[in-house]
C-alpha cells in the first residue's frame, strides 16, 4: 500500500531526535546522579522560578508539597502529590527545562536534578543514586489513582416543561475585580489585548523618579528578570539592593546592557544571555536594565 513517499530515517537521525522516556524505562540514557549532586544545579538553574524548596516563586509552578491535599478545597498538584511516574519528570526536565533553555541539560544533569526534585518531595533519599538501573525502584505515591476516561458520566434529560424549580434557584454573579471587561467599555483606558494588569500579582513598587526608558522597561523586568533579580537567587544582584548595584552601575549603562544581552560569567554568578529569553528584542532588554539600575540607586 506504499505510495513511495519519504526517505529512510537512519539510526543516527532517529537517535538525535528520539528523546522521549517512558514509565517502563524505555529511552532512559546511561548515566545517573544523586539529589545531593543535583542540589547546586537546581539552585542555579531552577530555584529562581520554582523556589528553593519547590514551593514556586511568584506564579511559577510549584514542584513539591501538597501531599494529601487532593480531596481538599484547594488541592496542590505537585510532582510528589500528583504525578504517577518518575519517568515523566526525567522526560520533562530534559525536554523542556530550564524554561528559557530547553534541551540544554546533559543527561547526567537531568538525572541529578530529577533526583533532587524527587528528594524535595520526600520520594527518594538525598544520596539515592538515580540511574537507568535504579529508576524502577522509585515509587510515586499517587501512581494508582488514575483511571481511564469513563465519560459520559452525566446524563441530562431533554426536558421542556417544569425542568427546574424557580423557587429553589440562586443566581450568583461574578466576583468583581477579576474579570477582564475593559475592552467593551468605552474609554476604560484598558489596553485592548491585555487585561488584569491590576490583577492578583503586584509588581515591584515603582520609584517616582524613573526615566521614561526605565518606566518602559518595567513590564519586561516583571516578566523576564524578576524571577532571579527580584529574589537574588543564583547570585543575581537584587533590584533595590544599592550595595549590590553601585559597583555595577559605575561601569556605565552600556556595559550593563551588553552583559544583559550577551550574558557573562561574573564573580557572584552566571547571567545567561537575555536571562535566557533569547526571543526578546535587544531594546526590550536594554529598557529593563535601565529600570533595574534606576531602581537600585
Amino acid at each position, binding site marked *: 500500500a506504499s505510495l513511495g513517499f519519504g526517505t529512510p530515517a537512519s539510526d543516527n537521525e*532517529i537517535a538525535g531526535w528520539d528523546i522521549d522516556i517512558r514509565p517502563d524505562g524505555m529511552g532512559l540514557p546511561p548515566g545517573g546522579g544523586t539529589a545531593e549532586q543535583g542540589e547546586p544545579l537546581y539552585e542555579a538553574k531552577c530555584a529562581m522560578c520554582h523556589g528553593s524548596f519547590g514551593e514556586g516563586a511568584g506564579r511559577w509552578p510549584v514542584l513539591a508539597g501538597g501531599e494529601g491535599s487532593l480531596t481538599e478545597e484547594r488541592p496542590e498538584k505537585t510532582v510528589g502529590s500528583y504525578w504517577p511516574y518518575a519517568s515523566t519528570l526525567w522526560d520533562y526536565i530534559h525536554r523542556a527545562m530550564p524554561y528559557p533553555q530547553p534541551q540544554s541539560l546533559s543527561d547526567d544533569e537531568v538525572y541529578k536534578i530529577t533526583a533532587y526534585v524527587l528528594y524535595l518531595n520526600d520520594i527518594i533519599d538525598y544520596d539515592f543514586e538515580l540511574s537507568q538501573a535504579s529508576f524502577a525502584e522509585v515509587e510515586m505515591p499517587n501512581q494508582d489513582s488514575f*483511571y481511564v476516561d469513563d465519560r459520559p458520566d452525566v446524563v441530562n434529560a431533554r426536558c421542556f416543561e417544569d*425542568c427546574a424549580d424557580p423557587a429553589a434557584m440562586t*443566581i450568583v454573579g461574578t466576583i468583581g475585580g*477579576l474579570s*477582564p471587561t475593559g475592552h467593551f467599555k468605552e474609554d476604560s483606558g484598558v489596553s485592548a489585548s491585555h487585561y488584569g494588569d491590576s490583577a492578583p500579582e503586584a509588581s515591584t513598587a515603582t520609584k517616582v523618579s524613573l526615566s521614561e526608558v526605565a518606566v518602559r522597561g518595567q513590564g519586561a523586568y516583571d516578566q523576564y528578570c524578576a524571577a532571579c533579580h527580584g529574589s537574588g537567587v543564583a547570585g543575581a544582584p537584587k533590584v533595590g539592593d544599592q550595595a549590590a548595584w553601585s559597583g555595577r552601575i559605575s561601569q556605565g549603562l552600556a556595559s550593563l546592557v551588553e552583559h544583559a544581552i550577551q550574558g557573562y560569567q561574573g564573580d557572584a554568578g552566571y547571567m545567561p544571555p537575555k536571562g535566557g529569553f533569547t526571543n526578546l528584542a535587544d531594546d526590550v532588554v536594554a529598557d529593563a536594565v535601565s529600570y533595574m539600575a534606576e531602581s537600585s540607586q
Partner: protein
Amino acid sequence: VATAAAAGAVTPALASNKAPNLPEWTKTLGRGVVARPYGRPSDFTDLQRRTVPWLTASPESSISFSPLQDLKGIITPSGLHFERYHGGIPEVNPDEYQLMIHGLVERPLIFTLDDLMRMPSVTEIRFIECPANGGMEWKGAQMEALQFTHGMVSCSEWTGVRLSTLLAEVGVKAEGKWILAEGSDAAGMSRSIPIDKALDDALICYAQNGEPLRPEQGFPVRLMNPGWEGNTSVKWLRRLEVGDQPWYHREETSKYTDLMPDGRSRKFSFVQETNSVVTNPCPENPIQQKGFIEIEGLAWSGRGTIKAVDLSFDGGVTWQKAEVKGLALPKALTRFGFKTQWNGEPWLIQSRAIDETGYVQPTLAQLRGERGTNTIYHKNSIHTWNVHASGEVTNVQIT
C-alpha cells in the same frame, strides 16, 4: 441632484457623509488593486484575540481567546484563532522541516513538507478547543465576557494527509498501539495518541482556511485530532513514534488529567463533550433596543454532529427548540438561532445542545455533582447569561 462645484472651486467640508450628502469616499478614487497583495481588515474594525495575563506566569506558556462575540458563521478567521503555547511560537523554516515516523514500524521514514503535500489530501471543517475552555468557572462565575468564558474554541477548514495514509507508508507493526506525537517547539510538546484515533480521522495538516497554517497554529505542519482536546493536536509536529503503550508525559499526567472529588483522576479524557453558548446577547453584545431579536449561539460536539439546540429564557425551567443554521458538520462549530421579541423583561438565557449520539449538554449542578470543582478541564455545562431590564448582560451561575 446637482453638486455644482466647478473645477477649482473649494468644496466646503460636508456636515456628514450621510444622506442627502454624498459621502467623501464617493467623490475621490480609492486605492487600486494590489495596494495590499495580502489584505487585512478595515482600520475601522478591531477584532482581536485577547489574553488574561494573571492566568499564567509567562506569555510564552499561556492562552489567548477568540472574540466569539464578534464572529459570524462557523469559520474562525485564521488571524483570530485562539492561541495556546507552552514555550512560545517557534519560527520553523519550512525548507528544513522534517517529520520523522519511527518506533514499531517496518520502515522508519522522514517526510519533507513537499512529500506531505504531494500525498493524497483531505479537507475538513473542524473545531479545535482547549479542554480548559470555561475552566475558570468551575468554582463560580469569574469572567465578565463571552470572549473569556468560551473563547478557547475556534473552527477552521483544515487540509492535510490522513495519518492513516502516512502509517501505511511506514507499516505499523502488530504491537503498535499508541503513538507519541512530539512538537518541535521549546516545550517539545508531547502527547500519546491511541492507534485507533490515528487510523480513524487524525490528520497531518499543512493548511488552514485555504492557505498554509499560521505560525500560531503550527506552521508548517500540525497534528489534528478532530473533536479531541486541543492539546493532543500537536503543533509544529516533528516526530511520531509508534509504541506498545502510552508515554505518560507531563501533558497527560500533571496536566490534562481530571481530578475527581474522591482524589482519583481521569486520564486520557480525550473527547470534548457537547457544548454550546449564546453569543447574542452576551456581555459584549447587550440588547440595545426593544423589539425583534435573533438569539444566536454556537454549539459543538467532539463526538460528531450537532442534532438540536434548545433555549431557555427562565434559567432552565422551560425550554424551546432553536433552529440549527447553515452547515451542521461533524466536530465543527454549528450556529443556532431563535427569532423572538424582547420587551425589557429580565431573562436568564441558556442554550442546551444535543449531538448525534443523543448526549444532552448537562447542567452545571449535574457536572459539579459528579466531578466537584477541582477538575479544571472539560467544563461543558449549560451556561447562563443574565439579561437585565436595561439590556445589559452579565455572567451568572444558577445554584
